[in-house]
């Protein structure tokens, strides 16, 4: 008999998996525009990928897998609508759109006047009339192609709960008349902020979980970065999109050093910087510089600049804390939040000493905005510890422990408490 042969199925599977990552969102977005039916769009997209798994074995992987998949999905949709005896006028509309789309070719961000449907999709997923949880789930399902089960696991909820959340969101879109479009100019700034906020929330969920045992849920941050890349590519004129991507890359670059072998949280100043991902840092830098050149600084660009300061420091003691404190000051002008002020206090303490930081903490406590937020107590504890005010530090660490939510952070605080004799 002959020698070993390459398994055609393995090659096809790889091609389909690869195509899924890049094409799923695009196909679903196009079908929703064409049919107005979110479930139909997902089902037809699903069927196209299933068809590819068998057809590409016999016919070979097409030169343009995306085009093949889109056409297959579109034809399936028209077919399904025909069979369900859809009203003749609606069917004609859909079929006409399919023909026009096919003639136009795959839409890209360069096609003048042709909107990437994924932009319509992401703005709709992130509409303020949907709950925040729904926005996140819908974005992951329709744009990133995560299954309901995967999303449920990522957010530590039962699958039926997540399924219901997605169904409710889609029904709300349909029943309340949420339009499938990129918002008009007067709404665009606030809606863009909404989209960026959803992506950053996703990234943070993966970067430091808000509850439970694992501090890092890597797959969510990876999805957030992927979606961030997509957003930056389809919104090339929005520097905050590039700013967000830069921020996520610069923070993600540190992820390998953030947890030690025993699963303990490693403080930024103690991290082994040789484990930082230099490729991500370079990319983050490049994106940030390009964004800043547009002279339209925004919160994400500033936060990226702060992350870049950390990334630039070869060792913790090389960190330009004065610059970071200044950046937090600028950030606070744009985003007057107590959390930003807390971060500024940390930077000021590093630049000017813990006494200066403590003054800012005390002002925050008087304000009352962060009552119950464990990082306020933990930061106060840290400053007191550095001032060698041991008993006060211990009391603050105890307060923080009462408020903390994740295991690794709890262990970290317990360790500090023991250090100050508490």
């Amino acid at each position, binding site marked *: 008999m002959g020698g070993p042969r390459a398994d055609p199925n393995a090659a096809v599977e790889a091609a389909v998996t690869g195509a899924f990552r890049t094409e799923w969102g695009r196909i679903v977005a196009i079908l929703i525009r064409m049919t107005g039916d979110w479930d139909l769009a997902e089902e037809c997209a699903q069927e196209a990928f299933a068809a590819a798994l068998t057809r590409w074995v016999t016919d070979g992987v097409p030169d343009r897998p995306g085009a093949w998949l889109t056409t297959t999905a579109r034809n399936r949709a028209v077919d399904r609508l025909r069979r369900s005896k859809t009203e003749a006028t609606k069917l004609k509309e859909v079929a006409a759109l399919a023909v026009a789309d096919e003639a136009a070719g795959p839409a890209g961000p360069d096609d003048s006047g042709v909107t990437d449907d994924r932009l319509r999709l992401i703005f709709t997923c992130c509409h303020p009339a949907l709950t925040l949880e729904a926005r996140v789930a819908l974005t992951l399902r329709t744009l990133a192609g995560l299954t309901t089960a995967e999303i449920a696991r990522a957010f530590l909820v039962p699958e039926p709960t997540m399924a219901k959340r997605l169904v409710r969101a889609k029904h709300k879109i349909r*029943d309340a*008349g*949420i*339009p499938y479009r990129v*918002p008009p100019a007067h709404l665009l700034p606030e809606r863009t902020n909404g989209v960026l906020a959803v992506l950053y929330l996703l990234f943070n969920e993966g970067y430091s979980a808000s509850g439970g045992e694992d501090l890092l849920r890597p797959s969510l941050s990876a999805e957030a970065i992927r979606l961030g890349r997509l957003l930056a590519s389809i919104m090339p004129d929005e520097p905050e999109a590039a700013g967000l991507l830069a921020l996520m890359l610069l923070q993600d670059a540190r992820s390998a050093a953030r947890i030690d072998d025993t699963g303990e949280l490693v403080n930024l100043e103690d991290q082994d910087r040789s484990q930082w991902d230099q490729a991500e840092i370079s990319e983050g830098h490049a994106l940030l510089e390009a964004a800043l050149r547009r002279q339209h600084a925004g919160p994400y660009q500033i936060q990226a600049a702060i992350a870049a300061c950390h990334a630039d420091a070869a060792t913790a003691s090389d960190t330009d804390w004065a610059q970071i404190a200044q950046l937090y000051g600028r950030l606070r002008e744009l985003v007057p939040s107590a959390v930003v002020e807390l971060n500024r206090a940390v930077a000021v303490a590093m630049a000017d000493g813990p006494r200066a930081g403590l003054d800012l903490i005390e002002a925050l406590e008087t304000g009352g905005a962060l009552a119950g937020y464990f990082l306020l107590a933990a930061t106060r504890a840290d400053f007191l510890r550095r001032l060698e005010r041991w008993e006060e530090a211990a009391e603050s660490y105890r307060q923080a422990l009462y408020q903390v939510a994740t295991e690794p952070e709890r262990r970290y605080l317990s360790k500090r408490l023991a250090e100050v004799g508490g």
Partner: protein
Amino acid sequence: MKYMLLMCGEEAPEDVAQTIPAAAPGEPDEPCWMPWAREMEARGVVLRDGAQLQSSRTATSVRASGSEVLVADGPFAETKEQIVGYDVIECADLDEAIYAASQHPVAQHGGVVEVRPILAS
């Protein structure tokens, strides 16, 4: 699409139709929602119906079970904020309805406007 806008707010101590001074002397004062109504019409939002309601003090709640009718004084929900008025509008989509709601005097003065799509019959 058709929506009902339900205006919810803290009720005024007295039942007086809220008005704003007329634009020109000698003209009657306008209901406070009149400038809003004009803006909506200019935008293409169709106002099908609408009214300011008398206060919840004048409300009567009615329940029925067969021939038994239960009547009680007051609104069905004893909350600080009550429905003070409503509008039925027809517009392109939820974003338009949200805009209409946001511009209404009740929303602008600390109340909340619920935007509810009307079931197509």
